């Protein structure tokens, strides 16, 4: 009987792949620590990355090009104009809950805005910042 809650939790996680932002952050922290011993994620570095302008794409030089200067705000796609829901977990509870979706958008947006794939450390910092920002 004691095993029942654990079993339910296991089944639920298998069914939906739903995870929490800290769980997703941890995946990247583990990856980063494998490359760099003692890696600790930093919301401050994550914020700096969010605001950094990259000399790669004129139409969207930074995360802020679409997500605005505050990740708590709704954004707008810099090219198509489509509305984008806030990136910060505090303003949009659906963020960083699906590992495959998070990885897909890091893949697309890092390539398009940064001009390369992002490192596990950058991803860990980014998730940490957006999970904590209020």
């Amino acid at each position, binding site marked *: 009987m004691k095993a029942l809650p654990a079993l339910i939790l296991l089944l639920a996680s298998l069914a939906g792949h739903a995870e929490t932002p800290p769980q997703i952050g941890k995946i990247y922290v583990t990856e980063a620590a494998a490359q760099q011993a003692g890696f600790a994620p930093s919301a401050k570095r994550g914020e700096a990355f969010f605001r950094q302008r990259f000399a790669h794409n004129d139409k969207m030089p930074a995360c802020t090009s679409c997500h605005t200067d505050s990740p708590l705000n709704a954004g*707008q*796609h810099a090219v*198509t104009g489509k509305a984008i829901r806030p990136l910060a977990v505090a303003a949009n509870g659906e963020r960083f809950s699906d590992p495959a979706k998070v990885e897909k958008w890091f893949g697309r947006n890092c390539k398009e805005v940064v001009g390369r794939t992002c490192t596990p450390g950058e991803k860990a910092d980014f998730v940490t910042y957006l999970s904590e920002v209020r």
Partner: protein
Amino acid sequence: MKRIALSLLLGVALPALADRLPLPANTPASYTAECGSCHLAYPPALLAAGDWQRLMAGLNDHFGTDAAVDGKKGAEIKSFLERHAGNAAKLGNAGNPPRISTTARFVSKHDEVPAKLWRDPRVKSAANCEACHRGAANGNFSEHDLALPALKR
């Protein structure tokens, strides 16, 4: 007499029908997730099958963006778009790469929209249907239900 009444009725009803373009009931989730994240999940009837094929073949450079979709999802989206594509003769040439906003149908439907409005930062692009057609996500493209007055202010 009955036939005249029917054709009159159709004449009234058809233009209204053309403004209702809801996504088909069997729209795969991959279409709304992959295509509807950066722009409206456009009604497939707005491009002809051949244009959708050309578009899907060039997703790695999709108007300057890498919008590549993995094999299984890509095939699902492509077959959905082909199945529900519009009539090429009625739509007109979409250009290459194909754009909905290049088709004669789109151009004639929007010929009264002032150039200034297209450049408005709230509109940004002809890709942004919802800037004016507030109900576009639900398939409502009626010209009687536009946000133009608010945008003109």
